[in-house]
């Protein structure tokens, strides 16, 4: 190969070599770790949620029965909720995360909370022990949110106050908004109480609880289908 040919071929060869190297690294990276999130969802979080659901389901079913007995919900609403309980079970059993995203969890969460409250009222559960039940309900919701890639809450700042929007499902989502004072403490347990009580109530279309020790007042339409 003479000098002129060498000068022409060498840059082309280097470019091809660079491209091949880049492609190899990209393929390696994609193959090794590009899909860690979905894999962890399927291999770890889904089986965990599946194993926990029977106990959460008991709370939900207890709540549905209590709500029906107290005529908080109609028989038709109870039937719809029971159908969602079964849908959720089937989606978890089948590992169908797309189906999970379509199930409205908030009404079921409301029933689960009612179920726990009903057990407390019946003397089967102390308030201290119930707190762990409430946390399980919240953890289960967070697990579902991640399995379905749902956004659980968006918090932003407007006019010196913060507006909170809670998105419960991806399909026909419902929104609960509220006014939070600028000096709001995120760790204030009152926020958890507000969240526990009003999020499921909003999803069910029930009036929100605005009195008591909640440090802020809701100002927006609680349910927006």
């Amino acid at each position, binding site marked *: 190969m003479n000098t002129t040919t060498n000068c022409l071929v060498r*840059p082309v060869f*280097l*470019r091809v070599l*660079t*491209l091949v190297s*880049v*492609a190899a*690294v*990209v393929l390696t*990276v*994609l193959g090794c*770790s*590009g*899909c*860690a*999130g979905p*894999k*962890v*969802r399927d291999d*770890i*979080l889904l089986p*965990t*949620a599946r*194993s*926990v659901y029977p*106990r959460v389901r008991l709370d939900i079913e207890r709540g549905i029965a209590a709500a029906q007995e107290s005529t908080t919900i109609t028989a038709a609403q109870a039937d719809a909720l029971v159908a969602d309980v079964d849908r959720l079970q089937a989606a978890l059993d089948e590992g169908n995360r797309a189906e999970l995203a379509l199930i409205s969890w908030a009404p079921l969460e409301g029933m689960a909370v009612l179920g726990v409250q009903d*057990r407390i009222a019946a*003397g*089967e*559960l*102390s308030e*201290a*022990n*119930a*707190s*762990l*039940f409430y*946390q*399980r309900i919240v*953890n*289960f919701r*967070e*697990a579902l949110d*991640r399995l379905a890639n749902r956004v659980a809450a968006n918090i932003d700042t407007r006019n010196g106050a913060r507006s909170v929007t809670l998105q419960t499902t991806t399909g026909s989502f419902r929104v609960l908004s509220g006014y939070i004072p600028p000096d709001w403490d995120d760790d204030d347990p009152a926020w958890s109480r507000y969240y526990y009580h009003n999020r499921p109530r909003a999803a069910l279309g029930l009036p929100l609880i605005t009195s008591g020790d909640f440090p802020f007042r809701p100002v927006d339409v609680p349910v927006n289908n």
Partner: protein
Amino acid sequence: MDQDILNLLEDTIRQTGRDLGDSAQELRAYAAEQMAQLALGVGQPGFADAAEAARDNVALRAGIMLVDDADSADARTVSFIQGLLVLGAKALAGGAA
């Protein structure tokens, strides 16, 4: 504190904490918090069920942490790949930078 419950929680951490990395410490703190709450309900109605709930909470929290960690890793990977693709584009353009 009931030793069985303590063992149960420790087992859950061992089973799930193996791959937790930096989050393992956070999970241990969460488990300790669960145990402290459980201790408040000893001898009260529903204690056995509450112990089960505490175990469920630790297991769910572990799964949630793992997903969050994996999502962060994926985001870093995507960013890395984007950087490599830019390099590739430059190489295609003749190495002009």
